[in-house]
C-alpha cells in the first residue's frame, strides 16, 4: 500500500477478475441475450441474523448491507460530495440552505405495487418523527421541520436552519422511502417484512435464513451502474454464520459463495486458491483509540504525543488485519469528504522520540523495573475495550506495545454495556471509536463537541471541551459551500492532531470474499455491496 490518495471506494481485485469486470462494465457490450443468461443464487454467509430491515428506524453495519439491496435512495453518491439522480430526477436547494425541493421519477413502484410519489416520502419522514416508531435514525434529518407535498411527484424538505450533511444522508439507506401501504399493513412487523423500491424484494424467513428475490419490474438503477432493468441474480440467501472460522469454511465447502468479516490471517491463502477478495475503504472516523484528556497521565500533551509516536500502527495492522487496511493518521479516513493529507506526517512511528517526550514530561524508569515513574507514581494507563471483531486482539497488542515504552498498561475487555458505563464514569485513559459515515459532520460532532461529553451515547471519549472547536464544528454543519466546509474540516483535523486527542490506528476497510464464479460485485461509497450487478457463472 503506497500513500497516494485512493479512489473513494478502493476495490482490490485479482487481476483476472478485474479484466472480467471491465468487460462486463462496458454497458454497450452487454447484449440482452447475455443478460438473460446471467442469474443464479447468491448464498451469503452472514455475520449476524439481520435484526431489523427497516432502514428508517434501525441501523447496524451488517443489517444495512441487506437494506441496501431492498431500498433505493433519492440520490446516488458516486464520490464524496457528488450526487447523481436515483429516485429523484432533479433537485434544488434554496439560497439559504433550508429548503430542499425534489422532483421524482414517475415510473417507480414499491414491491407491493404502491406507486412511489411525494406522499410516500412524507409518510416515511413523518413516521420517523413519531415517537412511537422509536426511530434511531431521526438525527439524519437534522433540523427538520416538515415535508411539503407540492404535487404528485414534487416535494420539499423544510429545515429550520442549514444542514450541510442532508444530501449525504439522503443518498444513504436511512432516509430511503418505504411503502406507506406496508407501514399500515405490517405495523410492528414491518421491520421483518420490508417493502422498498430496490432491485431485490423481501421474500421470506426460514429459521435464521433470509430470502430475497429479484424485483422483475426494476428499471430505475442510478447512472453508472453496469446495466439497466432487473438485477441478474434470481435469489439471495442470507444465512447467519456467527463463527468466523465456520464462515470461512462455508466458502470452501460451497455452502456459501460470498462472505464478509473474514479471518484476516486466512484471506491471502483464500486468494491464492482463486477466491476473490474485495476491499472497500470507507469514509468516516478512523479506527482509533480516543485519549482521555481529563485523567492523568494522559492529561499531559507530551504523554499523549509519546503514545502516538510510540505505537507501531503498521505493525498493528499487519498482525490484526493481516495488512488489510491503511494506517490512519487523523480522525478522518482518507476517502472522507474534507480529508486533509497534512496530518500524515505529524506522528511517524518513532520510539526514540516517544521515549524522549516521556522523559521531557518527567517520566523515567528510576528503579529499573521497566516501568517509568514520576514522583513515586508509576506511569500507568487504563485501557478499556469492548469485545467485538478485532478489538480484543488489537487492544492486547497495543497494551504490549505500551508496556515496551515503559507504561504500566492495564486492559479491561468487556461487553459493550460495561464499556459504555466506564466511558460515562471517565475511568479510562484509552477507549475505542470507529465510525463509517458519508458526511464528516456527525462523527466529528459526536466525538469532539463539548455537549457530547455527557448524555446521548457519550461519544466524546476524549472529553475535550473547547468553545473554539465547538464553533468550528457548527460552521461545518451550516456552511453550504463545499469548499468552505473542506477548509473547516482541515482545521478540525489539525486541531485534533495538534492536541493528540486520539491515537488513530487504521482507516476503516471492509473485506468481502466471494467464490471464483461470482461476478460483477461492486460497492457503494459506504462499502455496502451492490448486488444488483452480480451474477453467478
Amino acid at each position, binding site marked *: 500500500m503506497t500513500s497516494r490518495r485512493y479512489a473513494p471506494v478502493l476495490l482490490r481485485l485479482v487481476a483476472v477478475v478485474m479484466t472480467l469486470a471491465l468487460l462486463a462494465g462496458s454497458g454497450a457490450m452487454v447484449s440482452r441475450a447475455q443478460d438473460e443468461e446471467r442469474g443464479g443464487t447468491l448464498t451469503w454467509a452472514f455475520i449476524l441474523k439481520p435484526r431489523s430491515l427497516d432502514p428508517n428506524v434501525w441501523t447496524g453495519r451488517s443489517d444495512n448491507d441487506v437494506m441496501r439491496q431492498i431500498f433505493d435512495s433519492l440520490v446516488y453518491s458516486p464520490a464524496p460530495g457528488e450526487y447523481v439522480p436515483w429516485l429523484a430526477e432533479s433537485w434544488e436547494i434554496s439560497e439559504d440552505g433550508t429548503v430542499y425541493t425534489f422532483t421524482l421519477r414517475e415510473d417507480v413502484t414499491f414491491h407491493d405495487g404502491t406507486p412511489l410519489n411525494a406522499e410516500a416520502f412524507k409518510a416515511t419522514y413523518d413516521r420517523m418523527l413519531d415517537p412511537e416508531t422509536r426511530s434511531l435514525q431521526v438525527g439524519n434529518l437534522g433540523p427538520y421541520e416538515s415535508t411539503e407535498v407540492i404535487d404528485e411527484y414534487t416535494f420539499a424538505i423544510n429545515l429550520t436552519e442549514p444542514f450541510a450533511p442532508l444530501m449525504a444522508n439522503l443518498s444513504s439507506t436511512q432516509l430511503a422511502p418505504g411503502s406507506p401501504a406496508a407501514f399500515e399493513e405490517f405495523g410492528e412487523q414491518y421491520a421483518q417484512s420490508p417493502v422498498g423500491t430496490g432491485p431485490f424484494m423481501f421474500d421470506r424467513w426460514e429459521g435464521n435464513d433470509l430470502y430475497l428475490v429479484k424485483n422483475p419490474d426494476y428499471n430505475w438503477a442510478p447512472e453508472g451502474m453496469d446495466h439497466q432493468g432487473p438485477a441478474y441474480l434470481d435469489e439471495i440467501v442470507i444465512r447467519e454464520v456467527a*463463527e*468466523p*472460522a465456520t464462515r*470461512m*469454511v462455508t466458502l470452501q465447502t460451497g455452502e456459501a459463495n460470498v462472505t464478509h468479516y473474514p*479471518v484476516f*490471517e*486466512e484471506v491471502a*491463502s483464500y486468494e491464492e486458491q482463486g477466491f476473490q477478495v474485495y476491499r472497500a475503504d470507507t469514509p468516516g472516523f478512523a479506527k482509533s483509540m480516543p485519549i482521555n484528556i481529563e485523567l492523568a497521565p494522559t492529561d499531559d500533551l507530551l504523554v499523549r504525543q509519546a503514545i502516538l509516536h510510540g505505537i507501531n500502527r503498521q*505493525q498493528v495492522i*499487519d*498482525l490484526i488485519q493481516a495488512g488489510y487496511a491503511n494506517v490512519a493518521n487523523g480522525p478522518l479516513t482518507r476517502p472522507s469528504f474534507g480529508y486533509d493529507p497534512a496530518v500524515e506526517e505529524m506522528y511517524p512511528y518513532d520510539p526514540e522520540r516517544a521515549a524522549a517526550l516521556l522523559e521531557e514530561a518527567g517520566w523515567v524508569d528510576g528503579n529499573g523495573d521497566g516501568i517509568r515513574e514520576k514522583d513515586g507514581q508509576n506511569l500507568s494507563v487504563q485501557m478499556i475495550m469492548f*469485545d467485538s471483531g478485532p478489538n*480484543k*486482539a488489537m*487492544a*492486547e*497488542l497495543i*497494551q*504490549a*506495545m505500551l508496556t515496551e515504552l515503559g507504561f504500566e498498561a492495564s*486492559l*479491561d*475487555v*468487556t*461487553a459493550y*454495556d*460495561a464499556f459504555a458505563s466506564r466511558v460515562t464514569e471517565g475511568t479510562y485513559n484509552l477507549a475505542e471509536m470507529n465510525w463509517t459515515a458519508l458526511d464528516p459532520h456527525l462523527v466529528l460532532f459526536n466525538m469532539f463537541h463539548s455537549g457530547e461529553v455527557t448524555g446521548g451515547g457519550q461519544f466524546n471519549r476524549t472529553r475535550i471541551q473547547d468553545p473554539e472547536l465547538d464553533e468550528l464544528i457548527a460552521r461545518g454543519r451550516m456552511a453550504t459551500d463545499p469548499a468552505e466546509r473542506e477548509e473547516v474540516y482541515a482545521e478540525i483535523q489539525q486541531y485534533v492532531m495538534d492536541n493528540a486527542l486520539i491515537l488513530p490506528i487504521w482507516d476503516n476497510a471492509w473485506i468481502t470474499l466471494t467464490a471464483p464464479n461470482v461476478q460483477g460485485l461492486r460497492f457503494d461509497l459506504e462499502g455496502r455491496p451492490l448486488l444488483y450487478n452480480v451474477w453467478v457463472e
Partner: protein
Amino acid sequence: MAAVEQGAAPSIAGVTPGAGRRVDERSLAWMAFRRFLTIRSAATGAAVLLLLVLAAVFAPYLTPFEYDKIAPTAAYEAPSREHLMGTDKFGRDVFTRVLFGGRISLTVGLIATAIGGVVGVLLGMTAGYFGGLVDEATMRVLDMMLAFPGILLAMGIVAMLGPSLRNLMIAVGIGYIAGFARLMRGNVLAARRFDYVLAAEALGGRSWTILRRHILPNIAAPLIVYATLSVAAAILTAAGLSFLGLGAQPPSPEWGIMLSDGRETLNRAWWVSLFPGLAILLTTLSINFVGDGLRVALDPRVRGR
C-alpha cells in the same frame, strides 16, 4: 451433564452414602488408598495430575520465555525445538502460555468447587438434618436454581460483577451449590436413620456436634468423589465461559481464552488452539480418573474386587 455448556455439576447418580457402620477411620483410609493405587487408570490419572500441577507450579523454570511478551516477527511459527508448541499471532510461545495457563485453570477449578462445596454442604446438611420447614424452603430455592439455566446464571453474575477471573470463579461456584446441597441432603437423610446417630440423639447430643462428629465423616466418601469430579467439570465450565469472553482478561493465558483466540486460525495455525484444548482434556481426564478411582476405592460395597 453438559457441564461445559451450562455450568451444571457432575451427575450425583452412582454416588452412594457409606454403609451404616462406623469403622476405624484411619485403617479405612489406608485401605482405600491401597485399593486406589491398584486401579491402573486412577494411579495413572493421579500421576499425570501430579505432573501437571508440578509443571504449573514450576512454570517459570521450565521455559525461557515470558507468557505475555510479544514478538511480532515470530508470529505463527509452527512447533519446533525452540517453540515446542509453536507461537501465536503475537509471537508468544504457546508452550509457555499453556504452562502458565495451568495455574489459572487449576486454581479456578479448585476455588469454584470450594465455593460451591462449602455453601452447598452447609445448605444440604441443614436441610437434611433439621427437615421440616427449613428443608422445604431450602429445597424450593435449590429447585429454582436448578431450573434456572446455568449458563445464563453465570453470564448474569459475570455481567453484574464484571468479567474477571475472580468473578468467573464465583459464577462457576454458585452454579455448583445446588448439586452439593442435594447430595448432602440425601446422604444426611440416609445417615440420620443409622443406629448410632439415633443413639447419639437419644443421649441428647447437640445437633451440630452430631452432624460434625457422626454424620459428616460417614458421608465424606461420596463428598470427596463428588468434589473431585466437580473440579474437572468446573475447569470445563470456566473454559467455556472464557471462550464466550466472560472470564479472565488478556493477556492472561487462561486455556479457554487461548482456545477461543486460536479457533479462528485453526486452518492456518492449528497448534494455537490444539494444545490448550489438549491441556484441558488431559487435566480433566486425569481428574476424572482420580475421581472414579476414589469412587471405587471409597465404596465399601466393592471392597471384594
